[in-house]
């Protein structure tokens, strides 16, 4: 039995918007095992983004517990959360979110910079990952010189550079045409086959089909949790 890598227990998140209290998540509990490829689905406003922010340690739940690995990260201090993000999580965004003034290789190095890696080692590691996503010949290019699909591959390399426990992807194919999107999903499948745990938020059932498990949210609660037969 693979170890559980993410465990949510009765996680709630409420926002105060003016006078109204919004319940974004109303008690969510699930477990994700090492090597899972999970897609989180649901209509807009169902709490997908909130859940992803919590899973990504960008935000803290109002109540409940979030165990990442074996550590409860639900009420950590800001600096500790930064450290968790930097060492255990990899982010892939819909709009790539590369830093425009940095080159491809420098973008890939950013997480290592904050982990305090020495320059030479971090450069080697970044080069290795750029090669892995097929961008070895684009190292000194700026993000705006690349196509959307290439930019997203840089983002994947950046997310992998710190050997994270889980990869978090927010609509990774949302800004791409179907061919480029398919490329990205192929890389995800390879990574999963190598044992990476992936969590992907999407609204597209065709994209979700590539995952091995789909968690469907509705109004801040888990509506369904299905395992796909491959």
């Amino acid at each position, binding site marked *: 039995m693979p170890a559980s890598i993410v465990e949510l227990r009765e996680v709630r998140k409420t926002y105060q918007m003016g006078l109204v209290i919004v319940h974004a998540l109303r008690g969510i509990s699930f477990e994700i095992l090492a*090597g899972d490829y999970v897609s989180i689905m649901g209509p807009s406003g169902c709490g997908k983004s909130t859940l992803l922010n919590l899973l990504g340690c960008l935000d803290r739940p109002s109540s409940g517990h979030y165990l990442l690995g074996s550590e409860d990260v639900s009420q950590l201090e*800001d*600096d500790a959360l930064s450290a*968790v*993000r930097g*060492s255990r999580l990899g982010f892939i965004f819909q709009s790539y979110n590369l*830093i425009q003034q940095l080159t491809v290789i420098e973008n890939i190095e950013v997480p290592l910079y904050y982990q305090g890696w020495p320059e030479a080692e971090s450069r080697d590691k970044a080069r290795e990952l750029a090669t892995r996503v097929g961008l070895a010949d684009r190292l000194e290019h700026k993000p705006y010189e690349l196509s959307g699909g290439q930019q997203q591959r840089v983002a994947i390399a950046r997310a992998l550079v*710190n050997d994270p426990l889980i990869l978090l992807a927010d609509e990774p194919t949302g800004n791409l045409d179907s061919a480029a999107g398919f490329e990205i999903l192929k890389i995800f499948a390879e990574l999963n086959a190598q*044992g990476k745990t992936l969590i992907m938020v999407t609204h597209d059932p065709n994209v979700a089909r590539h995952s091995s498990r789909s968690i469907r949210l509705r109004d801040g609660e888990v509506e369904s949790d299905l395992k796909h037969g491959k």
Partner: protein
Amino acid sequence: MIASPALPAVASPGGANLLDTFAPARLRRTLRLALKSLWLHRLRSLLTVLGIVFGVCSVIAMLAIGEGASYEAQEQIKNLGSQNVILRSVKPPDEQKVSDRANQSFVLQYGLTYTDIKRIRSTIPGVTIVVPSRIMHDYVWNISRRVDCDITGTVPWYPEMRNHHVAIGRFFNEADMASSASVCVLGAEMVDTLFPLDSPLGRDVRIGGGYYRVIGVMEPRSKVPKTDESQAGIQTAAHQMFIPLDTAKTRYGEVLTKQRSGSFEAERVQLHEVTVKVATREQVVAVADAIKAVLSHHHKKKDYDVVVPLELLKRAERTKQIFNIVLGSIAAISLLVGGIGIMNIMLATVTERTREIGIRRALGAKRRDIVTQFLVEAVLLSGAGGLCGVALGIAIPMLVTTFAGMKTIITLWSPLIAFSISALVGVLFGLYPAMRAAEMDPVEALRHE
């Protein structure tokens, strides 16, 4: 069956990381990153820096020019002797009109007399030495070379009193004085004109019909701008030559005639200038007041002038102080303006790069990493501005010295202080934008367009 991956240790959020932030390797990368971001907005960075550049440069340049000017003035006043009181004969203005209208035989009589000296010496305590002198204006000749010159007839102790010493040869002595010897000491500035090829010592110069043997040459005196001269009451002629007072008396008599636009003008002046040396510095002002009282009692008209170099010196020092205060305020204001410019730009930069801040936070940057990043940019801006300002501030006084011939003095501390203040401005005004950047919620920052 997939093994659970080993958990990487979460870096401790303790103080050890703060040291990491300023480790040389890390700092170098932070600097490079900041340079890159600034380079991305070259024009904006340049314009921001200009405020600091001009602030720093104007402070240094103005200080250097002010320092130079006041040094010259003070040096000039010191040359008069801080223990001296200088009395001068002045042509009374109302009699000048009379002489203009009067017939040629009218002889204008005014000024200080030998009796005045006797009175001062006998009635005022604290007066040690008195140097009387007569000043005649005439041409000095060496065969066919001519110099327009003030000829000062004075006493042997003049050089010591006026702090103006002989460079080569000697000054005339008591014996020359007693025998009314025809000897002279030339001013340094006229030597090149009169004797361009060889040493003037032992040669003769001609004044009118008389010849004088050159026995010495004075040290050169620094040139002074006209305004300072009139303020300090220093002789205006470029060339000066000294002969014994008794020689002057016998050769010239007491009536001097000047030819002026066809008419002759004659005046009888016993002494043109008297330098009184006071025993101690503390007594100078009191003695000067006493001298004024004595003179005003015996001169019906104000045909004399009393110059107290010590007072002039004090006034010059006070002027310099005021100048420094004014400069300091201008410096403070211009650096403040420069600092506000930096803050303004940094705030704009932070807003513009909100998304970048969000990305960095998501990738593991701590708040203090963000603070460092933006603070380093601000300090780089102000530091670069400070450096350029120092370079310009040193160059401008040099140009002024080269082209305007004004003396400038760059004190060591003025560039140091100006530069450190500019760097401090960067820290102070960069801190608030940097804090704002760090306080942003990563979720909000990532959502920012």
